[in-house]
């Protein structure tokens, strides 16, 4: 099916989220929408999917104008969407999920699961997926869950498939497999809209690349375009994708994990015998597919999770059983993975967010009172030092862009006296300009002789920052390798396999 968008415009108050966007997706084409977070990609897809109503513009399917009032309409017209966060019921089986909202029934009106199972088997066979229709979703790996989403769309005869940041949760190998599936679907005539901000993937799979910035179509280019040029189109200026850094000057071991085991409430060993050293002046990156214990590792260090056995030492001091307050006081700067949930109070001002973990004493507090004079001064300093773009220090944090929100968190954590800096997904949902800035700050911190631990699922980030890379799989460290290790080998390690010839 051919999809045409003409002059799509959507305003939210005075903000124009989509400004006269036109694009054409030919049948069987993989059309990549490339843009930073906040560029307007998601708004456009929500317009297409009937979740928002456009202020202007037309949607044409095979030349006929259509309009949708909700996702149901869009699906009926042959548009399927695989969301970044899966829309599956975790306790239902694959078959039940696939037919949810469109259930086949028997003559007496009860659910006919046999039809559903048959449908799953048929589609799986076509694409060589190995999916058991009776498997329960929550027992399946994320990669397979994503395939269930695709099956779900295909089961409703989707002729146009929208994939919203589909590779965020996949290993490099799973990403390759997904790209294979995309090509096969396109070969059968399905049109694919592939939304992403990862340049490498665009080059690997897209037929056409449309770059969106600030709600406008900047250009449609061929995937042959060099990566640097794609990046400049996306950001709107020259960008340097490499991080400038000298060889590390490492010192003493500051952070030491010895055989740490963490068992959670559900009796899962989320950390399974981790032993790890981090030295002053180096960046250790913890790589791995999301949900393999990296987040738990950071939370355990901070005292948010109880250690079942093993020992954690910071600068020679045992902090295994310390509470969060004590760990922070002993000089750990922590940037949590989910800044909106754990790192910021959205309804607080920038000033109030700066003192989030500093309410126990100077400089933010004086006795029982907030030190307002110092807060004004220091906040203005931090806003300037960390280049936070805001009308003022009294602006609510929820009004800031993702990049500026993250800079608030980073500024807060780096402005304390630190013995260790640990950041989880420091640049997730952050614009390229802010990524450069945050990466620079991380390297500066390292060069100031502070050990840095970065947890990241983005291999590009890992390679540009790491002095050593620890790869985690199912709560264990598969190996710790130098950043010269190949992408393929790291990818295998992320799947739990230590390739031959790789020094662990």
């Amino acid at each position, binding site marked *: 099916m051919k999809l045409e968008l003409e002059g799509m415009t959507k305003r939210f*108050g005075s903000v124009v989220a989509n400004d006269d966007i036109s694009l054409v997706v030919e049948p069987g084409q993989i059309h990549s929408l490339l843009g930073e977070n906040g560029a307007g990609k998601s708004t456009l897809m929500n317009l297409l999917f009937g979740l928002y109503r456009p202020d202007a513009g037309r949607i044409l399917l095979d030349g006929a104008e259509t309009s949708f009032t909700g996702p149901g309409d869009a699906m009926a017209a042959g548009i399927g969407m695989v969301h970044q966060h899966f829309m599956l019921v975790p306790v239902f089986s694959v078959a039940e999920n696939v037919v949810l909202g469109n259930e086949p029934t028997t003559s007496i009106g009860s659910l006919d699961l046999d039809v559903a199972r048959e449908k799953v088997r048929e589609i799986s066979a076509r694409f060589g997926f190995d999916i058991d229709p009776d498997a329960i979703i929550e027992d399946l790996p994320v990669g397979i869950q994503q395939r269930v989403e695709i099956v779900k769309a295909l089961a409703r005869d989707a002729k146009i498939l929208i994939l919203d940041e589909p590779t965020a949760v996949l290993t490099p190998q799973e990403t390759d497999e997904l790209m294979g599936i995309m090509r096969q679907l396109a070969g059968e005539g399905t049109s694919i809209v592939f939304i992403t901000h990862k340049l490498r993937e665009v080059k690997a799979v897209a037929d056409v690349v449309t770059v969106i910035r600030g709600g406008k179509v900047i250009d449609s280019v061929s995937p042959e375009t060099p990566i640097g040029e794609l990046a400049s189109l996306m950001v709107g200026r020259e960008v340097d994708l490499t991080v400038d850094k000298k060889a590390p000057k490492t010192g003493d071991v500051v952070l030491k994990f010895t055989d740490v085991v963490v068992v959670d409430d559900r009796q899962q060993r989320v950390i399974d015998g981790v032993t790890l050293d981090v030295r002053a002046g180096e960046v250790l990156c913890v790589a791995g597919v999301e949900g393999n214990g990296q987040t738990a590792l950071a939370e355990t260090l901070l005292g948010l999770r109880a250690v079942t056995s093993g020992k954690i030492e910071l600068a020679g001091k045992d902090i295994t059983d310390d509470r969060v*307050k004590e760990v922070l*006081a002993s000089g750990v700067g922590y940037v949590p993975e989910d800044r909106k949930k754990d790192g910021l109070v*959205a309804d*607080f001002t920038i000033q109030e967010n700066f003192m989030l973990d500093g309410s126990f004493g100077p400089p933010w507090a004086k006795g029982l009172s*907030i030190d307002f004079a110092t807060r*004004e001064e220091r906040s203005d300093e931090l806003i300037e030092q960390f280049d936070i773009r805001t009308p003022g220090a009294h*602006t609510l944090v929820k*009004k800031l862009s993702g990049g500026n929100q993250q800079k608030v968190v980073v500024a807060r954590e780096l402005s304390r006296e630190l013995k260790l800096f640990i950041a989880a997904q420091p640049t997730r949902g952050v614009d390229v300009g802010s990524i450069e800035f945050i990466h620079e700050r991380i390297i500066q911190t390292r060069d100031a002789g502070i050990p840095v631990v970065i947890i990241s699922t983005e291999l590009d980030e890992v390679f540009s920052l790491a002095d050593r890379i620890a790869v985690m799989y199912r709560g264990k460290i598969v190996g710790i390798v130098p950043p010269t290790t190949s992408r393929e080998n790291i990818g295998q390690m992320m799947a739990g396999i230590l390739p031959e010839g790789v020094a662990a």
Partner: protein
Amino acid sequence: MTLAKEILSTTATKAFLSILMGFLVGAIFMMVSGQDVAKAWEAGGFLDALGAALTTVGDGYSALFRGSIYNTRADDLVTALRPLTETLRLAGPLIAAGLGISLGFRVGLFNIGGNGQMLFGILWATWISTRVELPLVIHMVVALVVAILGAALWGALVGYLKAQTGAHEVILTIMLNYVAISLFTWFIRSPDLLQQESAGGTPKADAPALTAQLPALFPGTYALHLGFVLAVLATVTYWWLMERSVIGYRFRMVGHNPHAARTAGISVERTYVLAMAVSAAFVGVAGANQALGTQVGYTETVHASIGFDGITVALLGGGNAWGIFFAGLLFGAFKAGGPQMQVIGVSPEVLSIVQGAIVLFIAAPPLVKAMFRLPTLSSTPALDRLRSRLSKKGVQA
């Protein structure tokens, strides 16, 4: 974006319009229930009925004014001002309880156990005020402190149970209301404990000893007593605690985002216990008002449901110290003015309807916004600037 637009979008504007709408709803009920209106309709038709309706509403609300602010029919100024002092006297406990409930809201806790907390504080205050002899001033202060601490303890229990077991505070506070009421009734039914000697079989406590009573501010002239001063002090304390202190800052942090608070090293559980205790302590000030501001013996109804009324005060006050203060004054005026309305034949239930309608409009902000077509602001740069200028001035001063 103009300043006018920003003012229109503030909560104060919404509160004001909600109050206005509440009075309109009350007016409709007065018209419908007034017998004069029906008679005028039968006698002279629509215009007469309309005239009668307007007269009824005018009479009703002017009675409210006479009963709560200034008695225009009084012979001398002292008598004319008596309604105002009554309003202040009755507003005292409403303000204190409103502050307590509001504090809970800001920490994300819905404290509907005000009545129970008041009674548990009053229980110990009654003990001090009727069974213990202490010198002047000291007796009153001790009774007051005990009323506040008792309430705080009852509140802390809720916080503790919530933190330890994960039970919801709404369930806990409701259940503890029953426990506190029964406990108090048992105490004032038992002659060995707190029962009045002459009460016979009925549960009733003695009047507080003269030395323990909250002293009148204008002895012999008005009934207004120290309780109102306590409410003013409570308002200032609430303001300092929530806007200036690090404790209030942590309260608000936990209220907005407990995950971020935990990550910032704050014990969310302990904060819940402390917040419930402080919330109940404010409610305890209301309890002290009720139990020590009287010269007669009382039963378990001494709480006068102020724990619940405090919720409406807190909602109208919008979390802001002085907003709550004025909301308390308004509802205090209703309490003071009700009897005057009854005198001229308007049923005082109209005021309950007004009160309920106001809170309804407050609780449904989109409704008021749609009715008056108020602007919605996605950001308020002018307010931001104003705030930053004000706080800078505050710092230098």
